[in-house]
């Protein structure tokens, strides 16, 4: 069902946790649907210096959250905004078709966190 890479990230999620003094926080999903992701970012000199996540959901939801933190860490804000749901799925060696929409929300959570950061900074 899942690729080895998905299972590996599910087993050992990277950057799991919270950042108490985060510069931006983004939450997407809904417990009713079975997936909720929160992404925390810390920004230094326009780069994502630190990123952490917390996720309620299936194996794919946890693996995509873990993967987005790896993809985004160290990237500039503009680069991070360009990361798509497709990039996340591809980096994980693909996802089952039924999981592509429901559990592949990590890129959205990252973008929400960046929007939150920009709003706090007064950036348009």
């Amino acid at each position, binding site marked *: 069902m899942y690729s080895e890479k998905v299972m590996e990230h599910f087993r050992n999620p990277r950057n799991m946790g919270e950042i108490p003094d985060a510069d931006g926080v983004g939450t997407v999903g809904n417990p009713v649907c079975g997936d909720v992701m929160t992404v925390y970012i810390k920004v230094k000199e326009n780069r994502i210096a630190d990123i952490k996540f917390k996720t309620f*959901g299936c194996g*794919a939801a946890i693996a995509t959250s873990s993967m987005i933190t790896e993809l985004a860490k160290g990237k500039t804000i503009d680069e991070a905004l360009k990361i798509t749901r497709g990039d996340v799925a591809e980096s994980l060696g693909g996802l089952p078709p039924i999981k592509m929409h429901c559990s592949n929300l990590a890129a959205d959570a990252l973008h929400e966190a960046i929007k939150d950061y920009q709003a706090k900074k007064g950036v348009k």
Partner: protein
Amino acid sequence: MKKAYMDYGAGTLVDPRVLEAMKPYFTEVFGNPSSVHSLGQEAKRAMEESRKNVADFVGAETKEEIIFTSGATESNNLAIKGVAYRNRNRGNHIITTTIEHMSVINTFKYLQKEGFKTTYVTVDKYGIVDAEALRNAITDQTILVSVMYANGEIGTVEPIKEIGEIAHEKNICFHVDAVAAAGQVPIDVINEHIDLLSLSSNDFYGPKGVGALYIKTGTKIQPIIHGGGQERGLRSGTENVPAVVGMGEAAKISKREMESESVRLSELRDRLIDGVLDRIPHSFLNGHPTKRLPNNANLRFGYIEGESLILSLDMEGVATSSGSACTSKTLEPSHVLLAIGLAHEEAHGSLVFTLGRWTTKDQIDYVLKILPGIVRRLRAISPLTPKELLR
């Protein structure tokens, strides 16, 4: 790593004794039971012995009341469509419940499109069918009541005899899907007023791809598969003799061992349920605490999701199921969990253990040892977990 298969409700292994009984019917006694020659007649005799074993298994009066099918889905389709179409001149109303298997619910939906009126009787928070609501749903147009003997997901055993009495008082045909109950609790079609009863071989250690429908003598149904007239014209097609022999042997063994096995499994089940509720905060039992199949423990954990639990347990060698949306083909949580009143977010956190003939106390204790850590890890990852639970 230990191995503990606890998904017997989804599929059992074939009991080695059953497999042995089947073997000659692949390469030695391979004749077609409809053939006149001795090889065909020998296959026919084996099939009739199997029919007798299945009849005894459910308390049928004669073996002719048993029709072999390809499994539970076909048995349910044949029973419901068969009765509905055959009795259309008497009425067009059919009744079932909100917690049936999809092969019942989707057959009802199909018949609704065909012009039948359908009623889905609700259940209480334990999954017990409201017999009075069922009685009140009956009209002079009602021709069929279909209720499962026990629910395989939440384990609740229904008041079948009481419902059968209600149906028969009003002269209405009563169908029972006994797939989850067969081999777990004794079934008595006569005493329980059952006219049709569906069985699946693989739920009691027989092979997959074979099932049966009990049809009480005098019950009028119409076939849904037409052809050469096998199985009294109700299920045409050359019989799968090895599988039928396997189902008969499985029924014989289950009947013989049920009493002691159900005591043994109930003890293991309660050890698992009590152990989990004891060790893990915010864990709950789904289904009825006592009116429950001996092999079923359906547990629910707050703040985490079922598929993550299944994957985590699988990594430790334990095979389980869940009613979470993430494990379904429709992305909806189990209709059974919603029917007993759980919110979507609660239903997502369910985990189903179905124990079986090879489940041991050691395996239960192994699950009790590893599950608290797995739940703690997933709760630490979840943003919904209250802080005080993580300390």
